[in-house]
């Protein structure tokens, strides 16, 4: 019977192949490390998702698709930027693909949607971009670390810089009306007012407002600066429309307002904006020059918030896998190694995690300038080793409510 012959030949071949494999070093026999990667390919967040995929791809290519001597199998899923879909995708990764770790998801509400689930199943998750304060504060999760700062982390520094170095006295804030904008603005306001400044007006345009005109016309002109906290493409639209209104007072900004991801679409209106952040393509830290040049060569654009975040998340995992000699099946050990990750170089430069799983890293103050024919954020000051708690005592910090639209309360409105 021909089928029988075929089958016998096949099994003989398989046996030979197996014995040949047995001769190879032990590492080659191990199954690949499975990493689930949650990105966004559809909807409003897709631009950030694409940059995340680039950072991830670049990181794996740089390591020849290996981590700790084992091959990496990357399973990429699209969450569509919806919490319910994110949950199902996480279940798919954990229950169907049985991944060893997850890198993602992109948005804070996505990370919060799977928060309980990852607690239940116990799978290490590294977030490359979800910045919601409480994820590593009041609701910290033993299975969660992040490769990105909290919403307010860099804004504390900007608050101090604005009061002490720029000697600003009175500031108007304007920011996206959602958690990220609220938390960033709250961090700025707290540090700014603690250093003698006054936030005299707070404006909250809705996330998808088409025209900022009605908000820009409300901005008081008897102030020293406008603090802008926008995400996605909103920073671009705000700065353009603000310039059309003659830009009466100068702009200081939260990092994603002038992120490299949208800076390439901006023009003169962005020049002179002072911002703060833990990443900019130009920052001079060990490892960033190669990274930024590599990304530019491969994808033709400067790396930004999402690119660097995904790369760092991947680098964190790589370091942790190395630390446990590739034995990722031991989830507890992998998580422990992840929590004690320490990187000497990379886009962020030197970075470690605090006991809550949030990075301690340099935060820079940058000024947007036109250089080499494109807009760049040029570093003017570095605050080393900034934590999510800034100079405040972590215990007291955590005892207070989470940053929001109304907390800390603004005492100087209308002055």
């Amino acid at each position: 019977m021909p089928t029988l012959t075929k089958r016998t030949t096949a099994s003989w071949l398989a046996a030979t192949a197996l014995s040949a494999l047995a001769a190879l070093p032990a590492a080659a026999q191990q199954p690949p490390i499975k990493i689930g990667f949650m990105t966004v390919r559809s909807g409003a967040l897709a631009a950030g998702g694409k940059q995340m995929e680039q950072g991830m791809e670049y990181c794996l290519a740089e390591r020849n698709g290996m981590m700790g001597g084992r091959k990496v199998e990357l399973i990429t899923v699209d969450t569509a930027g919806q919490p319910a879909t994110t949950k199902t995708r996480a279940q798919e990764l954990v229950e169907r693909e049985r991944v060893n770790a997850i890198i993602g998801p992109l948005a804070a509400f996505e990370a919060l949607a799977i928060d309980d689930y990852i607690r239940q199943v116990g799978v290490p998750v590294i977030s490359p971009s979800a910045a919601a304060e409480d994820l590593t504060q009041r609701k910290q999760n033993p299975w969660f670390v992040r490769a990105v700062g909290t919403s307010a982390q860099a804004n504390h520094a900007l608050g101090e810089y604005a009061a002490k170095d720029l000697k600003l006295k009175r500031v108007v804030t304007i920011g996206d009306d959602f958690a990220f904008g609220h938390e960033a603005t709250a961090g700025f306001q707290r540090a700014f007012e603690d250093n003698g400044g006054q936030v005299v007006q707070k404006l909250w345009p809705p996330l998808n407002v088409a025209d900022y005109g009605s908000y820009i016309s409300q901005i008081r002109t008897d102030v020293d600066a406008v603090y802008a906290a926008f995400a996605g493409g909103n920073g671009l639209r705000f700065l353009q429309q603000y310039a059309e209104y003659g830009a009466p007072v100068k702009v200081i900004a939260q990092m994603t307002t002038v992120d490299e991801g949208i800076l390439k679409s901006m023009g003169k209106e962005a020049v002179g904006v002072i911002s703060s952040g833990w990443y900019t393509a130009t920052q001079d830290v060990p490892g960033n020059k190669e990274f930024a040049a590599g990304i530019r060569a491969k994808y033709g654009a400067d790396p930004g918030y999402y690119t660097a975040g995904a790369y760092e998340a991947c680098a964190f995992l790589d370091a942790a896998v190395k630390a446990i000699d590739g034995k990722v099946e031991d989830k507890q050990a992998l998580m422990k190694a992840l929590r004690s990750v320490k990187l000497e170089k990379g886009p962020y430069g030197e970075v470690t995690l605090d006991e809550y799983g949030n990075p301690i890293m340099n935060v820079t103050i940058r000024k947007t300038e036109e250089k080499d024919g494109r807009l760049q954020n040029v570093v003017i000051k570095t605050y080393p080793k900034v934590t999510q708690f800034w100079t405040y005592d972590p215990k007291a910090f955590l005892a207070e409510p989470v940053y929001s639209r109304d907390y800390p309360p603004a005492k100087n409105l209308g002055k």
Partner: protein
Amino acid sequence: MSARALPFAVALAAMAMVPLFSTSPFYVNLTSQVTIAAIGALGLNVLVGHAGLNSLGFAVFPGLAAYLVAWLSTVGGIDPVFAALVALGGTLAVAALFALVALRTTGLGFVMITMALCQIVWGAAYRWTSVTGGDNGLSGVPRPGGAWLPLEKPEYFLWLCLAVLALALVQLGRFFDSPLGVALRGTRDQPRRMGAVGYDVWRIRFVAWMLAAAWGAAAGLLYAWYHQFVSPHMMAVTASAEVLLMVVAGGAGTLAGPLIGAALVVLLKNLASIWIDRWVMLLGFTFVVIVLLMPDGIVPGFNRLTASLKRLRPGPAPKLVPRERADG
């Protein structure tokens, strides 16, 4: 059990047996999602299929119920079952208020007003951060149950969902056959004549609205327990549109249609995406095909197909049955 109920019983039994054959809880959870979506779609079908009221704000009912149960059982610290009852009551109370506004209109006006009502609640969920958590939502919603009914296990939760679905099918099947159900379809086809012969059209529609809200709320409770997380996204316009899509794709006015539609949407969204990167496009393409080939939905389209196949086959001459006149 009547012959009509048999296919439903078989389908539900098959779904209940998924945990026995599935090697991973993923497929069990997926079946739960289909079931929850089907309950919601059945609710909307009362309005779209039987009352002729196309709502683009149906997500407000599951949304309200989910938010209420989530808030009561996390912040409020109330027992999940009691919280569910309060949430159900609360949703129905709000639905009754909304009915006063929405049922003043039909047609396009009804589409707009239901969408607007849903947007109001969505806006409240999004902006009232101190209560709803804003776009970060409410997490850590506890599932009910205990040692005797471990609902945290996927298979038990699926069986709970299927029990609710069975209840919905029985209740709605009986309702559609009842004189009130027939009167409801009367108000759909000839509202002025129904009024002229003495039916209170508004009250009949109100009953349909509340019934839709009740099953929508049931789906919302299960949704909150399933995801253990609620966020404003579940009340976005796209969420309402998705339920409408399930009903229309499956076949409005049929009992099986919403089930088929829910299975189609949930599986395309969550299963096809494993193999196909551009799954959103596939979703759109599938609906274009359905609309082109079966404009009144899969179930009626399939019925027509089998009927025409029967006609091709030589058989006994069809019995003469007096046909109902379309204008009554």
